[in-house]
């Protein structure tokens, strides 16, 4: 197992070397792709492992952005303190909301999470310290290479966390909850505590990504920070790559980011249409995600896709 991890070192080295290519557009694409991959990976901790589909993680992203912006723009504190403030805000909100909302199951949980970001957006639009509707301007730092490496480091940390989860007692408890929550409780799994821990962990990484993004773009407002389209992207990218796996969300995020980038250079409406088509086909033919394609195709050949269609009998 340890040797397989070593195989990742060159991949990480190549990714870390991208800023030295000096292509500004590529670096900017990289920062966006790395941050959205971090969001997908964070979403995976709760959504992929426990099966609790959240459409509210953008709330943690927004809290991370506002924590960083308030600390830096209003209180003139260093960036790292802002990141910490954003993470603390996200943990507090996750801990307070998690208790009641994680009692809901299936579609009820998903529907409730839809409202969280909108509520926080309205709240921050009325806070003086958050710049009300107008938002906040952060100090300008023109160092995209630094933002790139920070984003890469955060994604690596989130992925290491998920790799640990996948092999731990904690992780198998999360999977048991996904497979059958009542049976998990009967076996002795404290489902409430584990779900809450998963949500809080997801909130921390999501908030850190929001903080890095806020400092990078130097301007934040309520609509852009508590952006529910982000929630849809996290879910789609994780589902596309492979929910409940270590690398699926990262691969899903990179592939879809790249496809979107290529298509967006053409006609934008056609891009959106094609993007939708890719997702539709993926859901039908690859319900376990892109990461399952290699092994599944080797085992079953073309019948792999037919077998997947049959899995939709529910």
């Amino acid at each position: 197992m340890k040797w397989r991890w070593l195989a990742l070192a060159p991949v990480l080295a190549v990714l870390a070397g991208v800023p030295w290519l000096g292509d500004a557009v590529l670096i900017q694409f990289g920062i966006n792709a790395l941050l959205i991959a971090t969001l997908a990976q964070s979403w995976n901790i709760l959504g992929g492992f426990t099966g609790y589909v959240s459409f509210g993680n953008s709330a943690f992203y927004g809290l991370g952005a506002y924590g960083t912006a308030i600390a830096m723009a209003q209180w003139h504190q260093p960036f790292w303190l802002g990141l910490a403030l954003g993470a603390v805000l996200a943990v507090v909100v996750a801990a307070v909301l998690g208790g009641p909302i994680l009692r809901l199951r299936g579609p009820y949980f998903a529907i409730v999470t839809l409202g969280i970001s909108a509520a926080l957006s309205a709240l921050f639009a009325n806070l003086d310290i958050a710049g009300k509707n107008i938002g906040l301007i952060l100090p300008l730092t023109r160092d995209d290479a630094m933002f790139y490496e920070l984003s890469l480091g955060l994604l690596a940390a989130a992925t290491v966390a998920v790799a640990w989860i996948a092999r731990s007692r904690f992780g198998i408890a999360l999977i048991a909850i996904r497979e059958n929550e009542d049976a998990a409780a009967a076996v002795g799994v404290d489902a409430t505590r584990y779900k809450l821990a998963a949500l809080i962990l997801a909130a921390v990484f999501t908030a850190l990504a929001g903080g890095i993004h806020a400092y990078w773009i130097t301007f934040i407002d309520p609509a852009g920070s508590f952006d529910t389209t982000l929630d849809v992207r996290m879910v789609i990218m994780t589902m596309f790559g492979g929910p409940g796996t270590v690398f699926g969300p990262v691969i899903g995020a990179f592939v879809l980011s790249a496809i979107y980038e290529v298509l967006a250079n053409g006609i934008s409406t056609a891009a959106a249409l094609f993007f939708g088509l890719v997702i539709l086909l993926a859901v039908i033919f690859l319900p376990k995600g892109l990461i399952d394609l290699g092994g599944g195709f080797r085992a079953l050949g073309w019948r792999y896709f037919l077998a997947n269609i049959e899995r939709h009998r529910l």
Partner: protein
Amino acid sequence: MSETAPLFEARGLTKRFQGLVALSEVSFRLERGAIMGLIGPNGAGKSTLVSLIGGALAPDAGEIRFEGARIDHLPPFRRAHLGIGRTYQLTKPFPGLSVLDNVTLGALFGAGGGERDRAKAREQAREWLDFVGLAPQAAQHADHLGGPDRKRLEFAKVLAMRPKLLLLDEVMAGLTPAETDSAVALIRRIRDRGMTVLVIEHVVSAIRRLSDRLLVLNHGQLIAEGEPAAVLRDPRVVEAYLGRRRA
């Protein structure tokens, strides 16, 4: 926690569902190391009783004691930690996981909070799969198992929890006579390992061979308790099962 207290005791357990009384004033004790049978016709309240003991339902009145301490306010996972393990009438495996992983989950949690180390838990799980005769299917997905094997899996999973009290809810329903015989033998071997067993069955034939004592539920009330042979001769029990004889 006194040594003189029975392993398990129910006192005046009552459960209603929107006015319908599912259980009424049910009281009984389980002594350590016993196999107690619980029988009754359909709708007698057997599964409701199991759910009350396991914690999936809360009683409307009465108390439940385990090793002398009250447990009726505890959630299911806490009762599992204390040493109560249950199977389900309709088996509830973790469908997407392998048979081995299903049983490993029992070992990782269960009584006392379970084994912390995943590798050790897997070893224990293999032993329990061997014990129930499901070792060859260890790598299969749980939802690919057939009916009797699903019951074996349910056994292995709950045994891996190392419970002191085992609640078996209709584990023999739907088995062939040969499969029933092996289930009876299995439950005896479980008791020989020091576990106390409450066997809930609709079918009487297997349970009369297996149980040290029998409880009979009818319309939510305990109508008989005692030696299997004597209980099954009790006119009230006969009437509950066969209906009132017409003269």
